[in-house]
């Protein structure tokens, strides 16, 4: 049995069904630990006081929303190019979660901006390009939902997702290219972290918690899409009978 056997919707359905409870457990435990360290253990920031603590939700949500967009574009593109059924379903399942995390990052950013910058919103390069990311997610969802024919919806969505992918590097580098209000990257792979170790730990734990949540929800949504699209297949009938019994 190779890794690729899970590309069959029926296999994926079973694997995802096995993984979902574990992912949920990981998400809840990690979020509890991360929030505890972030809110009670991590020291108060020297310049921003307590308001910086929203970083533990804001930054992981922003990271994940960008990676999810690229993942969505990648799987949609694979599904379009190689006509692999499961990839298109995964792409469709990622979109709402990505849009949710984008919204969370924008909203927590506004909550953070009010005490630190004195405003809910500025038309800064990072914020604007990030708002466009939300529009791209919504456009993808709206287009794929508007087309009734499944295959056409998947392919049209793939085209939109791939075209929109140019925005992700723009968001990522926006703080470097345009030196506007949003602060530059604090965490980097190459440089030593510019924040206290406990803060970094809490942020990374929260990132893993969000990832576990994202995987759990995307798997659940993919399972629902698999059932809907394969409803005429024999294994679905068997599966549902087994689950009911």
């Amino acid at each position, binding site marked *: 049995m190779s890794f690729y056997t899970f590309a069959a919707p029926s296999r994926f359905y079973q694997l995802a069904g096995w993984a979902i409870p574990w992912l949920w457990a990981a998400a809840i435990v990690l979020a509890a630990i991360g929030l505890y360290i972030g809110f009670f253990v991590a020291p108060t920031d020297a310049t921003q006081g307590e308001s910086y603590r929203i970083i533990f939700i804001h930054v992981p949500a922003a990271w994940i929303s960008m990676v999810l967009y690229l993942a969505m574009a990648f799987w949609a593109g694979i599904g379009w190019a190689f006509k692999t059924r499961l990839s298109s379903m995964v792409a469709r399942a990622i979109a709402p979660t990505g849009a949710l995390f984008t919204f969370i990052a924008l909203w927590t950013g506004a909550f953070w901006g009010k005490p630190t910058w004195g405003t809910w919103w500025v038309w800064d390069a990072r914020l*604007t390009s990030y708002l*466009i990311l939300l*529009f*791209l997610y*919504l*456009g993808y969802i*709206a*287009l794929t939902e*508007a*087309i009734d024919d499944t295959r*056409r919806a998947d*392919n*049209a969505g793939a*085209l*939109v997702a791939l*075209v*929109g992918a140019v*925005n992700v590097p723009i968001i990522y580098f926006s703080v470097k290219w345009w030196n506007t209000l949003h602060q530059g990257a604090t965490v980097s792979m190459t440089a030593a972290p510019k924040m206290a170790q406990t803060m970094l730990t809490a942020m990374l734990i929260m990132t893993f918690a969000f990832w576990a949540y994202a995987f759990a929800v995307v798997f659940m949504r993919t399972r629902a899409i698999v059932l809907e699209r394969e409803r005429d297949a024999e294994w679905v009938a068997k599966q549902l009978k087994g689950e009911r019994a």
Partner: protein
Amino acid sequence: MSAFTAVLARDLRLAARRRVEALLPVAFFTVAVSLFPFGVGPEAQTLRIIAPGVVWVCALLAAMLSVTQLYATDHADGSLEQMLLCGESPVLIATAKALAHWLLTGLPLIVFAPLFGLMFDMRGESIAALTFGLVLGTPILSLLGGVGAALTLGLRSGGVLLILLILPLCIPALIFGAGAVGAVESGVSAQGHYSLLGALLIVTLLLAPWATAAALRISTE
């Protein structure tokens, strides 16, 4: 090349036979731009500041509203399928269609823009910057609009969907187009903005016709 000119000539001739319809985008642009002095107030100082943004946003909306018809009628009467089946490159057809759209909506806007600049009390150099920005920027709108029109072919509420899909991608053109006027107003050279607009135009020219062709294939299969 003959397919390119044939499609272009056909679209222009069709527009010439439906003159009122072809003038609607310009009429929309005129009305939309004229609404701003009523909404914002008639102070010349304020109008001069918002003029480039107003002209650009209205140009964008006019382009998006008119581009929905780019493939719709051809799709409805079946001629689009014939065009795609005739063996000519769909990329060529998409480019010809986008050029026809630009000649019918982008070009009139460029001609009318200086007039609106005068109505909004802009200075000569600013009007020149605005017009030149539109020359570089409106083809981008037609090209991107073509992608959206091909994607939303035959869908319910396709027009609104097209605007949701394409407007985010048009924002860079809007920023640099309106920014060029701002640069001239504050006494700096607008060269950088023109270069970026030109680069955007080249990139869209290289990618959008292919994306449109792919979208047409998805929509008509």
